[in-house]
């Protein structure tokens, strides 16, 4: 019978300053040295991290009331529209929203120099942002228009709420077509000219708990430089496994998180507006999860290495846009990180689009917070559905009746 721990045990050790915390990179070394059984006895928590563009991000804002009062039925922040179809002076600004009049892809490939993600970066950096609003006027909210400046300190709340972040695994994108394409995974040259991949592999949070044994509603996390929480499963949370030709399980894939946190605690080092050429604006989000080592099995997965974690190679030239993506091959993160993979007999240079050094930094910061007793583990009120739940995506049918 191996070691078993509860959240209470671990938090007591954190409070006593005795918890043994390793990053997802460090724990690999530990397991190599001592074996899983012994390492599980020693290690309480493993920290993970990821830092990449996460389009499904945004912020709920409450601006405070003007005199006379205003309902604010349409709102723009630095000319980027925010959704105001909720209560007075509340709005939701999404990371991919573009300013009105943006040339978009009219001058292909578009530059997307400024969008919702950049407004969020400006806010979190404490810079002034122009707030423009209009309303139809009511007896209780008579004001019809507003043009002013706000910043993070001057407004009541700014709650980062990201409906789909932290993808468990992601496609490695190539282009089998014969013209350059500009995708959310970067610029891909024709005839398999290059390959882009996006997770932090052995540091990536959900790759290290593929059965969702420790992640659920209320899990406390590193979010944008502050403390946040897992709010729910992310949209399109369809956890499963990728399997090789012989149907052997390679590693997890398909899980996502919905996360929430106070923007006022966060920093523009960990929330950075992104301009993805030919695709759009986005927000680069820093996110890290602690994995409590409840038993040996949890540790075994948390100690998986880049050699044991795989990404599916998908053609973004033709197959993906058509809606028929097919996994051309599976390549390990170790191969991807070396800078070259072989696809359909051709050697293809690779590049990441999410930052491994920043992911490592996040895992390190989270480790320090826990060691100092500043961050206790949040026991999930309910775990997220794992691969056993059999969740799968539905295609949208186009119909008129």
């Amino acid at each position, binding site marked *: 019978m191996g070691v078993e721990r509860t959240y209470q045990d671990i938090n007591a050790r954190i409070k006593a300053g005795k918890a043994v915390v390793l990053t997802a990179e460090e724990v690999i070394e530990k397991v190599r040295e001592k074996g899983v059984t012994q390492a599980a006895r020693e290690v309480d928590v493993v920290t993970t991290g990821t830092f990449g563009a996460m389009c499904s991000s945004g912020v709920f804002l409450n601006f405070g009331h003007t005199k006379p009062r205003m309902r604010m039925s349409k709102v723009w922040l630095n000319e980027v529209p925010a959704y105001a179809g909720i209560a007075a002076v509340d709005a939701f600004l999404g990371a991919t929203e573009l300013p009105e009049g943006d040339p978009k892809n009219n001058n292909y490939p578009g530059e997307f120099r400024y969008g919702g993600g950049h407004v969020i970066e400006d806010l979190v950096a404490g810079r002034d942002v122009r707030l423009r609003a209009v309303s139809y006027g009511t007896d209780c909210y008579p004001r019809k228009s507003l043009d002013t400046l706000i910043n993070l300190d001057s407004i009541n709340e700014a709650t980062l709420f990201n409906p789909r972040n932290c993808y468990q695994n992601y496609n490695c994108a190539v282009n089998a077509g014969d013209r350059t394409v500009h995708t959310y995974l970067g610029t891909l040259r024709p005839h398999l000219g290059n390959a882009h991949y996006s997770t932090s592999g052995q540091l990536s949070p959900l790759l290290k708990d593929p059965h969702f044994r420790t992640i659920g509603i209320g899990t406390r996390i590193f979010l944008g430089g502050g403390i946040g929480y897992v709010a729910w499963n992310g949209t399109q949370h369809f956890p499963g496994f990728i399997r090789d030709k012989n149907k052997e399980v390679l590693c997890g894939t398909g899980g996502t998180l919905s996360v929430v946190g106070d923007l006022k605690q966060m920093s523009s080092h960990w929330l950075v507006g992104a301009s993805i*050429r030919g695709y759009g604006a986005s927000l*680069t989000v820093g996110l890290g999860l602690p994995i409590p080592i409840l038993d040996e099995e949890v540790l075994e997965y948390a100690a998986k290495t880049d050699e044991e974690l795989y990404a599916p190679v998908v053609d973004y030239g033709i197959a993906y846009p058509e809606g028929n993506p097919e996994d051309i091959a599976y390549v390990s993160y170790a191969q991807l990180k070396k800078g070259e993979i072989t696809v359909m007999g051709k050697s293809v240079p690779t*590049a990441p689009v999410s930052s491994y050094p920043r992911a490592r930094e996040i895992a390190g910061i989270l480790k320090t917070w826990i060691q100092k007793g500043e961050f206790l583990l949040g026991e999930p009120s309910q775990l997220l559905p794992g691969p056993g739940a059999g969740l799968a995506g539905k295609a949208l049918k186009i119909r008129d009746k």
Partner: protein
Amino acid sequence: MAPEKIVLRFGAEKADKPVIYHLAKDYDLIINIVKASINPHKEGTMVLELTGERYAEGIAYLREQGISVHPLTTEVVRNEEKCTHCGACTVHCPTKALFIDRSSMEVRFNEDECVLCLMCVKICPVKAMEVKV
């Protein structure tokens, strides 16, 4: 006479024309190719030093050929504060001036190898690669 430094950028259709030959032969220019990078699709960038009386005519000839010509007063620099070391630019840099140090996975920039093709400036999602005049 001091040599003039210029940057040429040309598309695939121009790469086949022997422009360098014509510069030397028709305009009596002394040409030093400082750096050059031409990708498999035959688009490329060249940094040249030109010396000769008929320099201005030579430049006019290049422009007539549809080649973009700029004086080498610009420089591409990396804003270290902004760069997140995502790595996205590395595979697009034709000379590997931007490359990943595989042990740390950090992105390094070797200015000496840069041919000012501006690919990274277009690619970088956080606008960390800047053109300095």
